[in-house]
């Protein structure tokens, strides 16, 4: 399986549009172990959104192969190997995650295989993420970006085509607040 998923969190937006301290917020989405880790963390706010983006990226990776949608964040359990590297376990499937951080956002990429396979990603404005993706894809495949067309799978995962030819094996697009991010292979 070469599927890949990603999730971006606009940290300013997360601060204003969500309230992680709201009653029930942690209990509904995080396992007991994760909740303990969040509450004992030096930066609980960042831990909440780091775990959330890991779960979401893994979910987006998973649903590309099973083609079903659901909302069960607790079933995706996160653990960290380091600040950036982690693992999400869903049933007997393991996803490996890498997160990049800065003051404005955090961005997680999830893969089923730990092996480094060629994948391309980009982070930019929420408004231009699709154009950015097409430009990158055009540069790699040598077709004109204007001729690249997006089609969605039954679960809403995007795939990009040039006429009848599929250009992406797996692709994931994420929006949150001002930011947009993509990853494809």
């Amino acid at each position, binding site marked *: 399986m070469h599927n890949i998923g990603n999730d971006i969190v606009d940290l300013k937006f997360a601060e204003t549009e*969500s309230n992680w301290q*709201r009653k029930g917020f942690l209990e509904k989405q995080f396992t007991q172990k994760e909740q303990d880790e969040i509450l004992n963390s030096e930066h609980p706010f960042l831990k909440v959104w780091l775990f959330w983006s890991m779960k*979401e990226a893994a979910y987006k990776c998973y649903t590309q192969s099973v083609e079903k949608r659901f909302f069960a964040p607790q079933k995706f359990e996160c653990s960290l190997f380091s600040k950036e590297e982690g693992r999400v376990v869903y049933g007997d499937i393991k996803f490996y995650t890498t997160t990049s951080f800065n003051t404005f956002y955090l961005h997680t990429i999830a893969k089923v295989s730990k092996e480094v396979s060629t994948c391309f990603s980009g982070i930019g404005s929420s408004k231009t993420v699709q154009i950015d993706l097409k430009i990158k894809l055009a540069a790699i495949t040598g077709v004109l970006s204007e001729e690249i067309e997006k089609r969605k799978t039954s679960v809403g995962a995007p795939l990009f085509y040039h006429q009848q030819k599929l250009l992406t094996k797996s692709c994931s697009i994420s929006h949150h607040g001002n930011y947009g991010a993509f990853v494809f292979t």
Partner: protein
Amino acid sequence: MTKEAIIEELRTIVKPYIQNEEGFKNLNENTDFINDLEINSANLVDIILDVEDEFKIEIDNDSMEKMLSVKATIEVIQTKMNA
């Protein structure tokens, strides 16, 4: 509670989170929270918690798992209210 009354209540609940006005204007039983209203998945939990508060019900994880559309949400609310 009738389906129509629940839909009206849901309209108020989802309003702060929607990003697609057209989808919101046409909100009906077949509306999907993410595909039609473009609600960010990070806000799905807020909708679940608001539904619990408004309808005075408790939503277990199995029910929550299905709540991606108006239709599924109505079913969960009706089942819990009649329980």
